């Protein structure tokens, strides 16, 4: 995988809206066939970054290539080889499913348009509903239609902006199966998401908060990069750990307390200090303390809490 060529290679990308600095010195490297997860809280600049990659927004500064083409000057050529799925459903509500696909196929100048549309409908399992208006589809179906429409012209790079927001777990699962199939076929996928389980399904990740790229790498690298020591505190299942969480937060060495079902995850960068604090505090409580490896979620919550929001979002 490391030998695969870079499909996205950009550095120093900046974008302002008015006096809001929305994306700051973004650097991204995505290799061919990779599934690259793009994470970060709302308003952190994910959509803006993706739009800049496919030429829908012009960066204020920066340079780099996408599919070997210059992101600043060759966006027209980039568009032909990129499948972009917008965050909000943006196909035409007042066109039918088939008409939408047909329109997109025409826009990309496909020779075998009819066959491609029929095949896409077949694969979607929507052949029987081809004359239904797209606006009347449910969220999950809209998402599948949107994916099918941006795959129609056989792009080499997929940019998916929160594709599974508001989609049920089964549909989400099928969706990720499909993404992995595409990746295996050599298509590069950059996908933004809020879901931790989805982040774990990506080959590599980037975490962006308020325009700053805070961490990137494989899931393990991102977790290790936070240098967190984590203890799991579990009761006997009957007593409520909520009040305890509040008290633990005040302790020296505790950077982060997060609830995981009936257990608490307490993390800190300073391992020995954290351990000492916990042992002193919890000696009398009837709880079990075990050292666990920090999870990706611990790492992200830590990242999120320790990134200031200079924009006041």
């Amino acid at each position, binding site marked *: 995988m490391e030998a695969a060529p870079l499909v996205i290679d950009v550095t120093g990308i900046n974008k302002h809206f008015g006096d809001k600095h929305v994306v700051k010195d973004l650097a991204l490297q995505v290799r061919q066939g990779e599934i690259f997860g793009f994470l970060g809280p709302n308003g952190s600049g994910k959509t803006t970054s993706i739009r800049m990659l496919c030429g829908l927004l012009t960066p204020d500064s920066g340079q780099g290539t996408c599919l070997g083409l210059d992101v600043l000057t060759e966006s027209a050529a980039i568009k032909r080889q990129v499948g972009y799925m*917008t965050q909000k459903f*943006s196909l035409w509500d*007042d066109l039918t499913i088939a008409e939408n696909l047909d329109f997109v196929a025409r826009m990309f100048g496909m020779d075998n348009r009819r066959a491609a549309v029929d095949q896409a409908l077949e694969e979607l399992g929507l052949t029987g509903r081809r004359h239904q208006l797209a606006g009347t589809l449910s969220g999950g179906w809209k998402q599948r239609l949107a994916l099918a429409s941006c795959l129609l012209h056989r792009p080499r790079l997929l940019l998916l902006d929160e594709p599974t927001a508001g989609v049920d777990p089964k549909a989400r699962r099928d969706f990720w199966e499909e993404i992995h199939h595409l990746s295996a076929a050599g298509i590069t996928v950059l996908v933004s998401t809020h879901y931790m389980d989805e982040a774990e399904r990506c080959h590599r990740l980037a975490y962006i908060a308020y325009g700053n790229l805070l961490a990137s790498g494989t899931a393990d690298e991102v977790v290790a990069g936070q240098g967190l020591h984590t203890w799991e505190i579990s009761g006997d299942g009957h007593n409520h750990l909520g009040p305890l969480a509040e008290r633990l937060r005040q302790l020296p060495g505790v950077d982060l307390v997060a609830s995981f079902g009936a257990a608490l995850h307490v993390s800190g960068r300073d391992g020995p200090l954290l351990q000492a604090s916990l042992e002193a505090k919890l000696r009398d409580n009837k709880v079990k303390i075990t050292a666990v490896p920090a999870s990706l979620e611990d790492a992200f919550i830590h990242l999120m809490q320790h990134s200031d929001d200079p924009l006041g979002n």
Partner: protein
Amino acid sequence: MARPFFPKTFSLSRWLGILIKEFIQLKRDRLTFGMIVGIPIIQLLLFGFAINSDPKHLPTAVVMADPGPFARAYVAAMQNSDYFRIVGSVDEKEASDLLDRSQVQFVVTFPPGFHRDLVRGKAPTLLVEADATDPMAAGGAISVLNKLGMEVFAPDLPGLEKPVAPPVELRVHRRYNAEGLTSYNVVPGLLGVILTMTMVLMTGLAMTRERERGTFENLLATPATPLEVMTGKIVPYILIGLIQVTLILLAARFIFDVPMHGSLILLYAVVLLFICANLTLGITFSSIARNQLQAMQMTFFFFLPSMLLSGFMFPFRGMPEWAQVVGNVLPLTHFLILVRGILLKGNGLDMLWPQVWPILAFMAAVLALGLKTFRRTLD
């Protein structure tokens, strides 16, 4: 890496795709469809009927400073003409009052010595004061008054077989609106006004609608070029414009009896040019405006001067110079001259060029602006 070469040419197939999409969407958009048929009909009803029905039985007061058989005969003839309804005989002050309060449309004054002067062939003055706030209403009736003068007085006057001069001098004072317009001007004008309004507005909304619904992002993510998108969105509206024109012309011919002297083909050619000019403007507004409201405001910003300064509302030659300069830029000004020329005067192709090139120039300038401001990005 192989870098595919994509020439920046116009793709007919993409253009066709946009066209088909617009047609389908238009077909499903009931509101717009309603506007297409509704606006011409409503405007025709509002303007056409109000103006062209050649109103009759207009309330008229008579000031008799010199009652006599001729004066009485004249008043009776007025009554018989159906154009006037004599509300009574009043004095001068009362008459002026009635006119001010819009109780009467006309005041006809027979001056002292009317009978004597008439008999002596001295052509006495018959003063007609007209409330010309609605010049259309007054127009027909005044022309009837002129005829009546000849018919009523001429045969009874001794010593004259064929009057060389009218026996009475009709002096008409149009109050409140010195200029009068003739009704035939209106339907051609209406053609231009309706086209300006609907064509600019509908295309003005075409692109901003995509932007508001978020579908513009999808369109931008495809390789479609600005020229393909803009012209592809225009074409369906050309057809709509032609349908509207046909509706209006049918109404003009069969409901309002507007004469049609010139060539219909020539008329449609001129109409097509005018439609294209307006659509170009609309689509340019559409690419400048951020949302549908702004597009709507731009349309009305353009529509108002078009109504006021083109010669539709006020006679063009009566306007101050600066207004004429502005008016000359507007396509409607030239369109009105073209259509009146073809419909009413039967003008041929050779006489049209002075009005055609300004419309072409307007269109070229606006298209250039539109292509320049078309945002390929979401910035």
